[in-house]
């Protein structure tokens, strides 16, 4: 039986009314003091317009991505039926593992960080932030990480559906309204608490909690950091953007890479600027996450963490 190459359902499209309803509810309930959420008009506009632009950008590259997936599928190693429950369990786990590494790469190597950074540029953490999606992810080529799933034998439609499910799952965790979930949920799944840490710029929290749906990957690969009540998350990037211009949000890191490449004095430097950790510089004059964490760790040794209620406001 021929496996369908195009997905019959698109979870993201189906979820759009839920996204809208959830954002409106979060805003209204926050307005009436029923839950914790902070919305700033220009910040929200930026997030929503980035989401809108991402849809258009995705249309431009989506065909190439799906064609590549379908092409690789021609050479698949196993016949994996879309109708089998075990196949859906397998794609759930393997797609989530792939997402973990995609996400980790997108934070730890500058070329892919340039495509992903826009998602982290808001100094707010609310459901609208979830929609601040990339415009250049397709061009950066991280979609290639999912191709081995096609080679294994998962039909491209199945992969696309599971990717959609993961994206929809990750929407609702962008909120401050949910503090902590039951212990077993926090142990197994990516939750608002875990993902707040991921969006935080506090040195303690940098480069952590890359999970999509299951937090177990972070626990397995040593990147899990729990949220501490005594250290509220400060959202954004290490060097926050100076305005709300959506083109700046989408392209600032690419411009930064290009400027740095113009000053590179050797292939080694050019490689470092492109694929080094964000913040890498030949003379170490800038700071990477690792350096920031080390500096913070040294300060902690001298002076243990203090309660900082003002940072939460």
């Amino acid at each position, binding site marked *: 039986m021929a496996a369908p190459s195009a997905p019959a359902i698109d979870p993201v499209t189906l979820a759009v009314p839920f996204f809208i309803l959830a954002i409106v509810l979060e805003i209204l309930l926050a*307005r009436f003091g029923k839950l914790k959420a902070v919305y700033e008009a220009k910040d929200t506009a930026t997030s929503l317009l980035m989401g*809108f632009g991402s849809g258009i950008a995705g249309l431009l590259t989506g065909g190439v991505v799906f064609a590549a997936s379908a092409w690789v*599928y*021609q050479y698949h190693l196993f016949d994996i039926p879309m109708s089998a429950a075990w196949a859906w369990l397998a794609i759930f786990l393997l797609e989530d593992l792939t997402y973990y590494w995609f996400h980790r790469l997108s934070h730890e190597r500058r070329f892919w960080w340039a495509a992903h950074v826009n998602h982290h540029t808001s100094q707010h953490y609310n459901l609208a932030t979830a929609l601040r999606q990339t415009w250049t992810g397709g061009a950066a080529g991280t979609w290639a990480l999912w191709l081995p799933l096609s080679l294994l034998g998962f039909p491209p439609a199945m992969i696309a559906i599971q990717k959609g499910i993961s994206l929809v799952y990750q929407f609702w965790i962008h909120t401050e309204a949910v503090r902590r979930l039951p212990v077993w949920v926090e142990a197994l799944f990516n939750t608002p608490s875990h993902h707040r840490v991921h969006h935080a710029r506090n040195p303690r929290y940098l480069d952590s909690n890359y999970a999509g749906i299951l937090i177990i990957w972070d626990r397995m690969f040593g990147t899990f950091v729990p949220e501490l009540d005594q250290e509220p998350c400060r959202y954004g990037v290490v060097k926050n*953007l100076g305005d709300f211009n959506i083109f700046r949000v989408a392209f600032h890191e690419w411009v930064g890479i290009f400027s740095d490449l113009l000053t590179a004095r050797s292939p080694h430097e050019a490689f470092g600027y492109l694929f080094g950790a964000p913040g890498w510089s030949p003379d170490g004059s800038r700071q990477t996450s690792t350096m920031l964490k080390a500096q913070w760790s040294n300060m902690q040794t001298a002076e243990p963490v203090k309660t900082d209620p003002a940072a939460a*406001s």
Partner: protein
Amino acid sequence: MLKDTVTSGLRLVTLDVGHGAVEGRQKSGAASVTLKYIITQLVTLSIVGGIMGLVAWVRIPRATPPLDEAEVKRRLAEDFPQTPLDQIWLALDGAGAVARSGDLALLLFRLGDSYVSRSMAWSQALQAEAIKGRFRFKFNDFAAPKASLALAPNWANAAMGETI
């Protein structure tokens, strides 16, 4: 199987060539898809506009009381840890500040209900242009090209007279 799909698709397209009626149907189909796409985008933009309007209406940003020295110190310590501050000049509207740390100027400025910080050479900061009562600091940084602070008109003179 994929090859079959592609081949049969190509065959269909080949058969359609030269058949005016079918071509016409294809064209109207494509136009319908385009129209549907445009309508979808317009609806999406309307919803985006609606949510933006709602957020502007409900007014639930963070509180942004005027900065004082302690708050400036706290915020700059987050972004520039282990950087001692020699002196601080607060903006008159409390929406930012300039601090000196040796040869460096550390700037803090409000963006919406949040703050952004940057550093620049102190000598460069002293040359900030004054436009309509605000000093414009230009950074060599695409991510934050400039900051505009309502500092006291004589802040630079006062700063130049200051000894470290």
